[in-house]
């Protein structure tokens, strides 16, 4: 039986195509559980999962929570506001406190790049990165790949355009690593102020013109423009952004006729994506959300198997 090589999931960088395929295949069987009348299996019974969300998050957090519940884990939720974090406790002390509760898993969302790694270096628990700063968001990339594979049968050879603020996007990084490993071709598109230097190290190419970036692509992934993160120097105005990089019908027509429209959410209708395009039949935005539960179940299941093997040895 194939196993994940690591006891943590910190990123998609470094995952092999075998490991990625294992997670995606496992998620297929998790979808089936979600279709049962009683959507619950005893896999994680007796194991504790701490959901530790330093940044606000609705969909990722509830997706993890549903996945954990379907696997019968005991769940503890922490968020930054109203906890010891808001009283000035350091990440290190918070981690030690959580560790004292002997969780099997800590799922962490944090605003600092490297925060998941910080915990992994200091905790016994398996760490799952639910988004760290501008670094990685591996379960998002896995659920995106899962969604693409369900529609397009395979990832190798797919042309994927990722449009938006690449510099600040952990979703773009995790997708680029994963898709490159699986043999897909990724094009980043956005104004040059939103493209990080040496971006080719992520395994993607860059196209500043949206029209050129979309030509014949199989998948269009639009990223949320995070108004709060934008300085006036990266983006003169949302109006101009929409005019240059918003996905509308005209631009959609440049892609492959059966191109998937994806978005990690939450979407800004009328900003990066036109209202009618978001609701187009080619849009799989809500499927992505549904698939997120199956992917997170698969990741928890596979890491728990590693945990048990480790504890047994």
């Amino acid at each position, binding site marked *: 039986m194939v196993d994940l090589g690591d006891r943590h999931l910190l990123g998609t960088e470094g995952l092999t195509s075998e490991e990625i395929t294992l997670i995606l295949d496992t998620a297929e069987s998790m979808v089936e559980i979600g279709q049962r009348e009683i959507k619950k299996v005893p896999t994680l019974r007796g194991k504790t999962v701490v959901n530790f969300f330093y940044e606000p998050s609705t969909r990722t957090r509830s997706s993890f929570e549903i996945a954990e519940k379907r696997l019968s884990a005991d769940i503890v939720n922490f968020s930054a506001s109203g906890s010891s974090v808001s009283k000035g406790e350091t*990440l290190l002390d918070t981690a030690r406190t959580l560790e004292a509760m002997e969780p099997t898993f800590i799922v962490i969302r944090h605003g600092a790049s490297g925060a998941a790694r*910080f915990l992994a270096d200091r905790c016994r628990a398996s760490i799952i990165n639910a988004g760290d700063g501008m*670094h990685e968001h591996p379960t998002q990339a896995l659920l995106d790949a899962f969604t693409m594979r369900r529609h397009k049968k395979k990832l190798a050879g797919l042309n994927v355009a990722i449009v938006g603020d690449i510099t600040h996007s952990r979703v773009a990084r995790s997708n680029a690593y994963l898709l490159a490993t699986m043999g897909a071709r990724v094009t980043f598109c956005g104004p040059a102020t939103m493209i990080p230097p040496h971006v080719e190290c992520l395994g993607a190419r860059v196209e500043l013109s949206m029209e050129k970036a979309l030509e014949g692509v199989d998948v269009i992934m639009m990223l949320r423009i995070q108004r709060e993160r934008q300085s006036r120097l990266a983006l003169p105005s949302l109006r101009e952004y929409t005019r240059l990089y918003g996905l509308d019908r005209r631009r959609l027509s440049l892609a492959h006729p059966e191109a998937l429209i994806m978005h990690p959410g939450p979407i800004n209708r009328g900003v990066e994506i036109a209202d009618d395009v978001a609701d187009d039949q080619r849009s799989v935005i809500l499927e992505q959300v549904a698939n997120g539960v199956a992917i997170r179940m698969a990741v928890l299941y596979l890491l728990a198997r590693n945990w048990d093997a480790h504890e047994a040895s």
Partner: protein
Amino acid sequence: MKLPDEPSQPLLLKGGCLLDPASGRHENHDLLLAEGRIKALAPDLHAPDARVLDVSGKWVAPGFIDMHVHLREPGGEDAETIATGTRAAVAGGFTAVAAMPNTSPVNDDQSVTRFMLAQAAREGVARVHPIGCVSKGMSGVELTEMGNQVEAGCVAFSDDGKPVASAQVMRRALEYSSVFGVPIIDHCEEPTLAAEAVMNEGIVSTALGLRGMPDEAEEVMVDRNIRLAGLTGGRVHIAHISTRGAIESVRRGKEAGVRVTAEVTPHHLLLTEEAVRGYDTDFRMNPPLRTEVDRVACVAGLVDGTIDAIATDHAPHAREFKNVEFNAAPNGVIGLESAIPVLMDRLVATGLLAPARLVEALTAAPSRILNLEGQGSLAVDSLADVTVLDPDRPFTVEARRFRSLSRNTPFNGWRCRGSVTFTIVAGHLVHDGRGDLAG
């Protein structure tokens, strides 16, 4: 300096190889120290009243001068004090350190300068040369009373940690300091280009999702400073130079006759941005670790003399401030107790850097830049500050054994060939490294 009250017994160093770049001497000679001065050097010296140190097979050099350290006193005594910092210095082979003014309060007034020197006299075991602020409150607006501060003992002026952002303030600082013949030391960083950056901008920052600063943030300020030094005739010293382009600018500036000098740190000579990949905050400093191209340029610049001096930028931080997310950590690493072994091992033992050039960059060069009369040379009548190196003795950098109060070194665990055997300040043996455990 807190040294024994009784006059020191004369010291006779026998059988060593003198390495004195100031005089060009590189030969086997004995060296006699008495009354705080260098008394004599000759192939075979005898002094019946002297304590004899057998230094055969060792290199005998002028006492090393670290022209860029942060002693943290006053105000940051959890991280370092003048007492512990100077102990770390002599353990690392340094007999003198120049102390940066970003203390609390900052050293922008002769009262702070005098306090530091009084502390050094009470508790220090190495010479301490305060560096004063360029601007009052280090706020980059008004010049400090440089004349008063020089009289109190400042050897240079710097707003280190911050650049002098305003070109006009830098111009006036270069003009005014030239009255006293002292240099302006600038931490070259264009502040808006470097805003919020925590590492070098490049492949690694993009992969890690950390905000980077481009080389150009350093280079535009180096270029500006060289032009302003040319305009004013003042002396500018580039602190911790780190990019190929900046080194190229200094080279051109020197060729054009501008009074510009530069220093480089051991970490910029030996490490690159790749070290940041594990988000270990002991590799976070400013300027950040750069690329291999830059590292190689630093070595080349040191070898050919474009870069005058080696300085550690010893920047102690208490552990609780460094054991945090990379974004949240302060900049800076310590260097006093690791610099010589790591440089001996990686640059000298490998043949990249001649022993005499290493010693020059730690002695004659900083002495010349800071006008430290009687230091940086083994000439007769110089101060009896001597560093004895053993080029063959193995040494492992172990942070937990440091005399420094802080542990934030990027070199922990490095096994080195070459270490400090003796450090002598004013004729007193203040460090005997023979007891240090070999690795």
